[in-house]
């Protein structure tokens, strides 16, 4: 869904735990997205919280879900088996019809329609705890997004900190927490956020580039609930800080502008980094607005356009998405039942007499045809002297593809490689606006980690083909030379060559449609790129990217 925001900032399990507790003080805040690396304890936290809630309030109906989730499972539908058996329509209730609080794991795998159903649930007053990976789409109707981080701590430390977790927490301590929650609930009405503080908070929201206005009221609620929970007589700075961390920071689209100098250049939005790893972005930054497509580049782009127009993406059968094209026997599989076809089949069964009875093997499902576009994956050598030219050329082609993607269904992704490792500069996207922003600032310069770039591209292409069933085409801008090993260390010509040939073998097996665009100038072709193309089983396009 919306752009990926890092889930945030400074949190740690303690913070995530607090966010959940605050949600029990004010139920409107009980929608929490917990992010964190694999093994950071976020699932343990969510599950532990569920048990805690059950003990705290036995009347709460809690359900656990694991994405991907069927929308019908969430919102209900027709129970076909029982409908047939009873000969009257039996509606199946959805998970969201009965639950007060749901826990969804692997948030990032949910379909937009499932997310929409959950959004409606939260807006009706339902509670939601979701867990997701580091970079996951942050739905901004969720009250707070926090990060669980294991850090260097041992799991035993973790269990100890999660007050409500199994075994550890039963007994007095948990009763204390229950008591604190109940008294916080009774105290929250007496707390309010002053006019001056509210004004400051709105300014903070503007500084952070928080979009929309949902966060405003959630933030005030979070401040009050936090103050109530810590038994404060009045709202204080720590309450504001907590709320800003939970509610605003996950929604931030930019870092607050530094006080002086960079006022003119503050327009592009650097995304806030959760780890604060300083990334020296040296070297050239090319803006596409300065790119004029020269003739060879236009040719390359046209070739891309023509090739993909030929097939115009791909279509494939699906049991649940796309246009309905035909029917087939269910044979135990789930899907949309084709009623007329089922009845017809039952009626035609030998020995059938009125009233028509339907057996499970009469059931017919509808077959849908889903039309997907292609993904154009641009892999660009951003190192060395050819970088600027290659980058411009890739941007030019990306722009051409996106122009067409604007009317079609194609998507674009860009991997740049330089220094020690490749970087996914533009994740697969159909959104012109998003790609444009990413393309705005492509860095260049440094070593040539070709092997790991190919590795990243192969994984991306493979994943994309599996998950979206899109056809993938890879466009590789390179002079065919490399000097960095797969692990990011500089290597000798022989060791790099050995790795590349191994990589090429893997690549050929994947059978990805690939084009190699030579970044050497026409008068200085060295044949390395052609050799690479052959090794990859790719088509060599002797396109010249002119150097500045």
């Amino acid at each position: 869904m919306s752009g990926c925001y890092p889930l945030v900032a400074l949190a740690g399990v303690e913070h995530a735990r607090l966010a959940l507790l605050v949600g029990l003080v004010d139920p409107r805040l009980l929608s929490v997205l917990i992010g964190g690396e694999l093994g950071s304890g976020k699932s343990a936290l969510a599950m532990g919280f569920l048990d805690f809630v059950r003990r705290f309030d036995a009347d709460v109906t809690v359900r656990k879900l694991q994405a991907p989730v069927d929308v019908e499972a969430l919102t209900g539908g027709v129970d076909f088996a029982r409908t047939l058996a009873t000969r009257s329509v039996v509606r199946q209730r959805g998970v969201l019809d009965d639950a007060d609080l749901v826990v969804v794991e692997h948030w990032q795998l949910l379909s937009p329609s499932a997310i929409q159903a959950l959004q409606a649930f939260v807006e009706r007053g339902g509670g939601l705890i979701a867990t997701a990976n580091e970079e996951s789409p942050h739905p901004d109707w969720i009250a707070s997004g926090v990060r669980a981080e294991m850090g260097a701590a041992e799991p035993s430390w973790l269990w100890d900190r999660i007050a409500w977790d199994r075994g550890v927490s039963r007994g007095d301590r948990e009763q204390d927490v229950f008591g604190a929650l109940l008294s916080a609930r009774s105290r929250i009405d007496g707390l309010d956020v002053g006019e001056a503080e509210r004004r400051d908070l709105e300014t903070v929201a503007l500084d952070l580039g928080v979009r929309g206005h949902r966060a405003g009221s959630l933030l005030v609620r979070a401040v009050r609930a936090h103050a109530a929970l810590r038994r404060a007589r009045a709202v204080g700075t720590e309450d504001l800080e907590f709320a800003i961390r939970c509610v605003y920071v996950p929604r931030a689209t930019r870092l607050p502008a530094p006080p002086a100098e960079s006022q003119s250049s503050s327009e592009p939005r650097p995304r806030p980094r959760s780890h604060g790893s300083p990334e020296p972005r040296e070297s050239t930054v090319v803006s596409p607005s300065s790119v004029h497509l020269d003739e060879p580049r236009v040719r390359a782009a046209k070739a891309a356009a023509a090739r993909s127009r030929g097939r115009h993406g791909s279509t494939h059968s699906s049991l649940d998405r796309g246009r309905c094209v035909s029917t087939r026997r269910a044979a135990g599989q789930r899907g949309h039942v084709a009623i007329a076809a089922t009845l017809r089949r039952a009626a035609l069964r030998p020995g059938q007499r009125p009233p028509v009875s339907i057996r499970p093997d009469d059931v017919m499902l509808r077959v849908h045809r889903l039309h997907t576009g292609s993904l154009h994956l641009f892999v660009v050598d951003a190192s060395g002297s050819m970088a600027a030219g290659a980058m411009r050329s890739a941007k030019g082609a990306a722009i051409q593809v996106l122009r067409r993607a604007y009317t079609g269904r194609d998507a674009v992704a860009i991997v740049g490689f330089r220094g020690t490792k490749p970087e996914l500069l533009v994740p697969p996207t159909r959104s012109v606006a998003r790609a444009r922003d990413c393309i705005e600032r492509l860095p260049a310069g440094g070593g040539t980690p070709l092997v790991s770039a190919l590795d990243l591209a192969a994984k991306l292409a493979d994943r994309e083909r599996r998950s979206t069933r899109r056809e993938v085409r890879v466009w590789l801008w390179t002079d065919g030379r490399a000097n960095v090993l797969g692990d990011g260390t500089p290597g000798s010509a022989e060791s790099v060559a050995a790795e590349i040939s191994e990589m090429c073998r893997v690549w050929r097996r994947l059978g990805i449609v690939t084009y190699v665009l030579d970044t050497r100038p026409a008068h200085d072709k060295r044949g390395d790129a052609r050799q690479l193309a052959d090794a990859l089983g790719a088509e060599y396009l002797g396109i010249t990217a002119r150097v500045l």
Partner: protein
Amino acid sequence: MTTARPLFPFVALVGQDEMKRALVLNLVCPEIGGVLLLGHRGTGKSTAVRALAALMPRITVVGGCPYHCAPDATAGLCGSCTGGEIQPRELGVPVVDLPLGASEDRVVGTLDLEAALLRGERSFEPGLLARANRGFLYIDEVNLLEDHLVDLLLDVAASGENVVERESVSIRHPSRFVLVGSGNPEEGELRPQLLDRFGVCVDVTTETDVERRLEITRRRLAYENDPAQFVARFEAESLALRDDIALAREIDVEIDRELCERIALLNAQLEIPGHRGELTMARAAKAHAALDKRDRVELGDLASVAEMSLRHRIKRDPLDHVDVSHRIGELVAAWTE
């Protein structure tokens, strides 16, 4: 789970003037052809759309008719309303939500399962397109809706009729509605064909004025605290707007030839393909004049509706940063000099 609470009143929305204007114009003149709201989440798009029903007088429908046919209509009556006694009934204007997960069945309607199983009858179970007849069809995140559903909706919106040929059901029924779509272009691009079919288009942005932001949060919290009381606070203002709209619908507005020429010229200057832009702009300007209780379009009406009528029709480089609304604004500003 929770009981339904009164909806946030339309007039209580702070700011977002162009969005509100676009929606109200469509209430005055549904022929404008719907509204597309583009912008970030949480900017009040859904709230505004859901609040529309309260601004319209109740409609009279044929009792028991799934398509909300009008009893006094002479054409466009569905199969179930032709013949037999008609029992008129009053109904609030329907605002139908089309969820992203909706299947084609649910949108278009399909074979009635119960009738087929119990009575062996081949009858039609109407879908969302039937329920939206004479009301609004709202698609949140229209840019994420599957393409074939979007095509289908646009066809129906244009023809005002839903033609069903599936599951051995063959039926056609009236389906006239104002299509309101919303979406965030950063999450997926809208196809130009789709853009053009929406009458007017508004960019909804996050409010940057601190005082207004404060008021937004204040009202939101007040509403959440006690919805009924909050709605009562704005009751008078809501009724006034509702009366204005009802009155505006009755006014027959004329537009001078000279102003029509201006519209045509503006469209030509902006190199807008097709003629939908001109038609929409003229209709919107008329509705705008009617809201101001005038029966003649003035230059100011054109200026007020120019951007929303044309911004999504300008051919533009998708990678171009230039905000096209500016160009419209500049050309319109030149009129008064």
